[in-house]
């Protein structure tokens, strides 16, 4: 790396530079720079249509970028398909969670990568590993890993979805609106889980509309506005008013980082 970020030392886990993405005549992303350090939680905020989802889709390989650099642990990568991002160690938990309500926690956690013993499902190994994983994440709200996921609360379902993303042993997790539609204690559960991911040295990107949640859990806030960088804030040095200003464009100022627009 020739260039180090102003705030942190070392190589970013993920860095994208000058990302541009067009859908026909629409420029969804216009020269976006973004980075995540190992063990850092970055909040990605912005108004509807600001390009948050598009940026995440570029990072997770669903929509390859038209222009720009994609660096993973300092090395340039060509991420053209979701599997490329997965292979790098990026796990994405989408807002709809993609769980099968008719299956239990174990079956959902291991869906598509079932343990096999003698050609058959190894339920014992999977259940053991599921218990270990949930204990490691201090998820205590799930009473039985044999409970049907459809019978669970939003927070429990989110926990299952996040735990599932960790089975591939990723280095970075992207959470899309993890606290939307959750109650107070449920939100608390999920935010604690995010902290646990950071403690385990993972990079985390949290997309959220809820600034209270963002301020509660992230280290750095990255604002997107009209498909470009809208400002970047250290959580400790920023106020919610400043962030709202950057989101709406009311204040054209930002303490650090570059607004290229």
């Amino acid at each position: 790396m020739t260039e180090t970020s102003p705030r942190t030392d070392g190589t970013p886990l993920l860095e994208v530079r000058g990302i541009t993405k067009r859908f026909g005549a629409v420029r969804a992303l216009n020269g976006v720079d973004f980075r995540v350090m190992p063990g850092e939680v970055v909040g990605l905020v912005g108004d509807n249509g600001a390009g948050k989802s598009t940026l995440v889709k570029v990072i997770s390989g669903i929509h390859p970028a038209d222009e720009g650099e994609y660096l993973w642990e300092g090395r340039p990568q060509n991420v053209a398909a979701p599997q490329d991002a997965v292979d790098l160690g990026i796990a994405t938990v989408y807002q709809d969670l993609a769980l099968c309500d008719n299956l239990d926690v174990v079956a959902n956690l291991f869906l598509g990568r079932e343990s096999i013993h003698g050609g058959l499902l190894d339920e014992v190994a999977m259940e053991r590993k599921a218990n270990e994983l949930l204990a490691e994440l201090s998820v205590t709200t799930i009473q039985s890993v044999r409970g049907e996921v459809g019978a669970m609360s939003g927070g429990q379902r989110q926990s299952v979805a996040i735990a599932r993303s960790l089975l591939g042993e990723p280095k970075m997790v992207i959470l899309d609106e993890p606290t939307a539609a959750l109650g107070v204690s449920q939100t608390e559960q999920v935010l604690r889980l995010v902290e646990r991911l950071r403690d385990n040295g993972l990079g985390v990107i949290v997309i959220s509309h809820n600034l209270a949640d963002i301020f509660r859990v992230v280290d750095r806030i990255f604002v997107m506005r009209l498909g470009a960088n809208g400002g970047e804030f250290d959580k400790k040095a920023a106020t919610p008013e400043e962030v709202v200003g950057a989101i709406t464009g009311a204040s054209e100022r930002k303490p650090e980082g570059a607004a290229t627009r």
Partner: protein
Amino acid sequence: MSTTVTPSPADRDVSESPATGPRSLGGSGRELLNRLRSGDLGSLRVLVLLAIIWTIFQLQENRFLSSVNLVNLSLQITAVGLISVGVVLVLLLGEIDLSVGAVSGLCSAITAVLSVKHGWAPVPAILIGVAAGAAIGMFQGFISTKFGIPTFVVTLAGLLAWQGAQLKVLGNTGTVNLRPGLLTDLAGKFLSDAAGWIAAIICVAVYAAMAVVGRQRRVAAGLTAPPVVLLAVRIGAVAVAALLWVWIVNQDRGLPVAVLILIGFVAAFDFLTRRTVFGRHIYAVGGNAEAARRAGINVFGVRVIVFSLASSMAAVGGIMAASRLLAVNQSSGGSDLLLLAIAGPVIAGTSLFGGRGNVWSALLGALVIGSISNGMDLLGYSSPTKFMVTGAVLLGAVVLDSAARLGRQRTGRV
């Protein structure tokens, strides 16, 4: 890493023991009640229904539970039960196959014509018949998945087309009578008394061994295991049912081979759906196809294989029906066969909405429908009444299914 989850003080949602704690009897009792209410215990519900039906008929006509009639009943349900096994797989995907009746007729016609008109040996003739079923199912599954057409429509087209093909295969005479041999033995042979006992004991032993070994593996791994009492009750119930049944049929002609075939297929497909990766994927696709796709499951392949298996089982059922009738004619696979084959599993708790149910519902559902039909025959009711009663039972079952689904939604379970 310890497998015990320690609750932290900040958790307010913890109301019961964590995942790996020993399960109290009171807890499992409450769970049982909950599951009964939310309709998850479809099999238990249908056993109660069956007991009611049997009691009513037995009170009206004491020949109903005689050994002769129970053997007749078990023979009457084998063909539709075999077809239902395939229907269950399709229902688990949340799809429907309206062509199973026509496919059973066509494939049995193919087998009969090869065997009788072309002098083929029974085994190759049966294999070609079943293979034709597999190919038909593969075709229908492929077309509906590839072009995104509802399976309702594709298999409706199939129903018409395969019926036409059946008439064509049967030729001008329209009826092919089977020669005595393996084909007629399928439904016409009975085990000797001793062989019947041995078969029952083997079945119970296999079931008990699997249950005990499964429990031991869980205990060895430090996981929650069902209480020994519950395990003993389950094994005991299976043993009593199997031995009692063999004792009853041995008073008459003995254990029908057809019933062993039916139970064998049901057990095999139950194993496939619950113990293999492929089976897990069927449930996943039926529960949430998009989630399954994102988890890397080949949804297309699962659907094509399931439809192929369903049509293969339709062929097997058709051949069994032919063996019982000793012939294949133009109305084979027609009439109410399709409707009963779909109604059975639904009555026995397999959901029309996909993802919920099990293969045993094919057997139990066929037993319920067969009992109603058999009992009303004994009481001398005509077909109109039979159809209306069966229709009412089906409607009741579907209402229960939907009510259970609404109940799940009300308690936040989709």
